[in-house]
């Protein structure tokens, strides 16, 4: 009797345990419950999701994270707002030059202007990872849309953006890990290091491969890439080819400048309008914008940073369409002196604000020293304020037509064929006439020299993320060929080591990836 019951009880218990425990062990297979966090199988179900992935690839150039403002950051080594691609790009292209200097004592930020950064600099590290993360986002979308005819456009555009980021990697670091859509993600594998030549070749091959697949210039939706963007990156790649690989490619540069010139772009008559809250209307000149929006694209980096950081002192914030300045960036006297008249009455590009400021800088950290720049504003061309006084509506003109004309002229002067000196002069005077509002600023063929072009690029393109590249091409960023205040951490300016033409691979990636090594000695 007892045995029977024991047996019965035992077997029941066993059955119960088996079912119950088995079920409970299966509980361990969890999937996210949050509607906003989903696995790939669940989320990638159609057109909408793929377009959102594409939107991330574009937004990767400006926003730091996934929730307002820069929350759930993409990069964790630096604060979300600081990690904005555009903010970092601006800091790296402008702070090491005479165009900008910052009053903030944030970590090792001042090393960018002092030109004494090292491989542990957190801003350099963030720039490097931001570029590589952008490449990874693009690789993922390229992988997901491979051989899917309905998403071919997205596939091509992701390749375009990837080439753009690889060009930034080439331009700033001259090397880097090389990964494509065929490499695994989510494991600790070690990508091979690409040389400058390999990066150059990859960008060139890719852009030539997708050039014909992209929409015609100005034919895509606003904010998205088209053929002109590919041509622009190719033109810049060729213009700087000697710096990157040692081989001159001025003729190829002219070829691609010509393609853009014949695509129908024109100079916007009012220079200042290119940098206002309604500059999305300037598609006649702006070839590729990075889009900002006061309500829908909020970040503490991007345009929020560029505009707020440059407002302060006696400059009323309201005139810039914002609620207050952050008193960081202003310029050095070396840049101011590029203009003979800083009032803006002669050359309208002199958007300089000097009231209450000293021209020279005795103390980097005193914002009142150094003239302010008031180029970008969150005010429309009709004088209305942007939609939000913290976050501007103003888009960033990453590439614009005026730059194409300058590149054309420079390539011609450097001996490229396919263009002519007379056309170059004509283009330069187009720019001067727009700047002056008349022909008073026009130059003669004798005045059209490479040095003139370098200065003219400063006057035309200042604070638009070109200056570092330009100075390197002319051999003037490092060394003592050209000194400006606080270059080399000296008030009068001092010579700097040649290695600062290239940013170091961050120590963190050298450490993480044994395939990488510094390509420049001294880092």
């Amino acid at each position: 009797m007892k045995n029977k019951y024991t047996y019965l009880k035992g077997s029941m218990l066993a059955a119960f345990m088996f079912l119950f425990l088995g079920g409970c062990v299966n509980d361990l297979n969890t999937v996210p419950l949050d509607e906003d966090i989903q696995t790939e199988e669940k989320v990638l179900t159609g057109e909408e999701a793929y377009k959102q992935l594409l939107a991330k690839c574009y937004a990767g150039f400006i926003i730091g994270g996934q929730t307002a403002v820069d929350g759930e950051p993409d990069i964790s080594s630096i604060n979300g707002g600081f990690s904005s691609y555009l903010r970092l790009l601006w800091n790296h292209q402008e702070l090491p030059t005479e165009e900008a200097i910052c009053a903030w004592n944030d970590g090792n930020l001042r090393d960018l202007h002092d030109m004494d950064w090292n491989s542990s600099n957190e801003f350099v590290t963030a720039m490097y990872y931001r570029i590589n993360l952008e490449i990874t986002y693009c690789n993922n979308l390229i992988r997901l849309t491979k051989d899917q005819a309905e998403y071919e456009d997205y596939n091509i555009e992701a390749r375009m953006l990837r080439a753009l980021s690889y060009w930034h990697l080439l331009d700033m670091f001259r090397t880097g890990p090389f990964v494509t859509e065929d490499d695994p993600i989510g494991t600790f594998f070690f990508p091979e290091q690409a040389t400058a030549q390999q990066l150059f070749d990859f960008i060139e091959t890719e852009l030539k491969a997708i050039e014909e697949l992209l929409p015609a210039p100005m034919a895509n939706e606003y904010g998205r890439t088209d053929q002109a963007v590919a041509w622009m990156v190719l033109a810049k790649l060729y213009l700087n080819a000697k710096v990157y690989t040692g081989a001159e490619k001025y003729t190829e540069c002219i070829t691609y400048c010509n393609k853009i010139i014949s695509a129908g772009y024109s100079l916007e008559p009012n220079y200042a309008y290119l940098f206002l809250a309604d500059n999305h209307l300037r598609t006649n000149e702006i070839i590729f914008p990075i889009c900002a929006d006061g309500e829908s694209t909020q970040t503490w980096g991007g345009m929020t940073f560029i505009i707020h950081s440059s407002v302060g002192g006696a400059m009323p914030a309201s005139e810039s369409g914002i609620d207050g300045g952050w008193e960081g960036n202003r310029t050095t006297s070396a840049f101011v002196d590029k203009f003979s008249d800083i009032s803006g009455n002669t050359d309208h590009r002199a958007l300089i604000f000097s009231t209450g400021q000293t021209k020279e800088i005795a103390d980097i950290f005193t914002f009142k020293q150094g003239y302010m720049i008031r180029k970008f504003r969150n005010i429309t061309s009709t004088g209305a304020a942007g939609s939000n006084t913290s976050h501007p509506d103003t888009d960033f003109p990453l590439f614009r037509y005026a730059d194409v004309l300058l590149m054309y002229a420079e390539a011609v002067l450097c001996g490229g064929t396919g263009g002519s000196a007379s056309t170059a002069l004509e283009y330069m005077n187009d720019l001067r006439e727009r700047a002056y509002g008349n022909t008073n600023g026009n130059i003669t063929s004798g005045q059209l020299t490479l040095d003139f072009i370098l200065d003219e690029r400063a006057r035309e393109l200042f604070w638009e993320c070109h200056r570092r590249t330009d100075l390197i091409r002319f051999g003037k960023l490092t060394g003592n060929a050209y000194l400006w205040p606080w270059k080399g951490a000296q008030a009068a300016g001092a010579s700097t080591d040649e290695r600062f033409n290239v940013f170091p691979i961050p120590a963190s990636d050298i450490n993480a990836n044994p395939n990488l090594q510094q390509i420049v000695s001294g880092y």
Partner: protein
Amino acid sequence: MILINLKTLLMLLGLMVSTISYAQEVSLSGSVTDSSTGEPLPGVTIVEKETTNGTITNFDGNYTIRISKGALIQFSYVGYRTIEQQVGESAVLNIALEEDLEQLDEVVVIGYGQVKKGDATGSVIAIGADDFNKGTTSSPQDLILGKVAGVQITTEGGAPGSSATIRIRGGSSMSASNDPLIVIDGMPVDNRSISGMSNMLTSINPADIETFTVLKDASATAIYGSRASNGVIMITTKKGKAGQDLKWNVDYQFTVGQIKKTIDVLNAEEFTALVQERAETHSSVDPTLLGTSATNWQDEIFQTSTGHDLNVGASGSVKNIPFRASFGYTDQEGILKTSDMKRYTGMLNLNPSFLDDHLKVNLGLKGMLIDNRFADKGAIGNALRFDPTKPVMDPDSKYDKYGGYYTWLMKSDGSRNVNATRNPVAQLEQRADESDVSRIIGDLQLNYKFHFLPELNATVKTGVDYSESDGTIITDPLASWTQAASVGIYREYSQEKRNELFDFYLNYQKDLPTIESNLDVMAGYEWQHFRIKSDAFEVDKDDKELENSKDDTENYLVSFFGRLNYSLMDKYLFTATIRKDGSSRFHKDNRWGTFPSLALAWRISEESFLKNSKALSNLKLRLGYGITGQQELNSGDYPYLGTYRLSDNRTQYQFGDKFYPLLRPNGYDASLEWEETTTYNIGLDFGFLEGRLSGSIEAYKRKTENLLNTVPVPAGTNFTDRLLTNVGDLENEGVELTLDAMVINKKDFTWQLGYNLAWNQNKVTKLTSYDDPAYKGVEVGGISGVGVGNYIQVHAIGHPIYTFYVYEQVYDLEGKPIEGVYVDRSGDGAITLDDKYYSKDPAADVTMGFSSNFTYKNFDLGFNGRISLGNYVYNNVIVGARYQELTVNQYLTNMPSEIKYSKFETAQQYSDYFLEDASFLRLDNATLGYTFNIGKDWMKLRCYATVQNVFVVTDYKGLDPEIQGGIDNDVYPRPRTFMLGVNFNF
């Protein structure tokens, strides 16, 4: 059907067993008293050995039992030595029990069971209610502050109910959690914080706690497997006893809290003089910004706080159902204006037995309601920085739009200066940050002793821990800082946390007298589910939605575990445990972890050559080894899973004239696995002079492997730049000493002293997947006051975690720091990053706790305190003191008077000048009480006065040397609290 039949059968079986033993009985009665005081002892357990026949003494210490002649009868009572006696001819047997100072027979809870203190093989420290720190406030952790060697408790600050960081033996992780596992009445609870409540432990009323048991070494903790790497703290609440008369306990306290000292900053006069003097030589300093008031901003934000605390408890037995019920009410103001906490707690424990004690039921319900108001702690730092020449309120109409509070305005257009320091009083008064939190912990435990096999026990436990938080943060729309776009003025949030537990275990206990052995085997299964749902909603002053988010996340733990206790001749003890844990936080290939432990103990004092020694009453050697795990990764519930996150409506991108949300692939490490800690422990417990002096000494070494570290990923291989992964090794080693002495033990006069000491050192031994001598470590320890992105500490190989990484300051002949001049440690002639050195770390090398309890007749006097040696603090408060800060962005900034000494012009934040030895001696608590005898024995009234945080002796120049993490930055000051209380038992 079958189940019902089974039940009937079992009951019948039970009845048969219990009716067998009624033969040749006598009625025996008597009283049980305390041998030293002569007072009657209620609740003493009296059993006839080898049977289930038994009773307990009533309130007057009397008992009656029917018992067979010649039987062996045993009298036992917690805290007293058990006495066994043969029943003779006499019908009366009076017994005087002797207090057991060592309490080796006392039962201590361990994971999934209990063990006699004398039989414990691991490092298990139990602190009972009698030994708790007296006269403490609302937070349970205060009860054992300084009581246990190697357990460090640091409150975050002096806010009511503020959180406390508990570290047992230094912590075994870097980026994963270092919090011990908290087990409340057998239920492991979730350590993650509850929204709207700063300290998870405050949901337990300290007055309801019977014991704290701290499991320190792996042989004791490994039964909790994957959550035990940082030790286990088990809290047992008070319960009623069978047959006990109704007892009431009423306790009321009134407290007054005051700030002990404030930071010395420049006063209005000094500040004005400084600004005017500097303006002569520095164009950036603008003296026209000065005002004419004289405001001490710290006085404006702090207050004298008062508090009340009322606890009512009742315990007894109704219709044979023992119960304890209690109610508690706490109302505690903070010393920072506008901070306040009100708490209501209720508890009910029922523990009836059925089927002739074969089925024991334990039902526990704990409920808690907290109403918090949090003050904006940013006001503390801003009170140091705000210009003292400005008034709190300014009648000028231009401040009307900011509610009349003085606000920095721009000279250019009179608009608000967005960069300027906020008015600290406005920060407090124009913001109401309130939360309501309710929490219920319910558990039901059934323990069945098999009728046909009484050695076998089955325990089933189910429990739910449920909390609900609702909070609102309402900011006055006039508050200056809300004038900016996209700044919230109304925020509401809620959170629902639900943890469920089910466990089942079988326990087989058998005496094997033929081989003088005792066997205790346990095997079980546990299932736990944790779910957190939360949402938040926020709008700005234009009613624009800033946030509307919902989160929902869960994880499961499934475990199988077992333990074998074997004791031979009561002298040689052996324990082995094993646990297999499955966690939903890992990929299914890495999901299961196995955590074994082994322990040996030798009760040397039971050996014949020592057994009769009066001098040496206890000597036990313990050896333990075990492996524990870690799955509280601080990295969400799905760190191994590739997921996509959709952005919110303010984080979109424009294509054409439409905005699209962003879909982001998140970074992940598919091969993430357990962090594993191996612990070796050796301990010696001793007792002299029948326990008048007792204690233990222990040494341990812990090695954590597969240490989780957030490391840079190889760029291009993941959707992030840094990722949590298993790469490092960390070692902890230490020595602990505990001493307890009953110096005087007379009827009217007792004096008890306690002392403990712990030395712990940790060292990172590996941090990256391969060796790189150039690797400086992981930067941690963000500092403020000098822009963003500045870190002062590193986790570096060969050094303790959180080591300060700084430049060595050079001083002039007078001992003053020379600004910007550091020791060129690399010798390359320039000061570069290579000149930074690994300096001290914030963890104390040695910590000590001491306590004294003194009773004379009806008076009692006690105090307890702590000593901490070698803990370093980075004084971030004075880092902001530099002349350069005086005028930035068109407003003035005040600074600590320290500036008069350092005279720093610019930020020197990486200088070791700011690093100070913050060793301290703190008297936490001193209390004096008097107990009134009101005629009856069963009625007692005790009145007491207590001072908390009595004094601190330290060389540290900041407010308080006790800083969790070692970076002193605007910490909510701990008040000195005066308390008057009355405790009434009847």
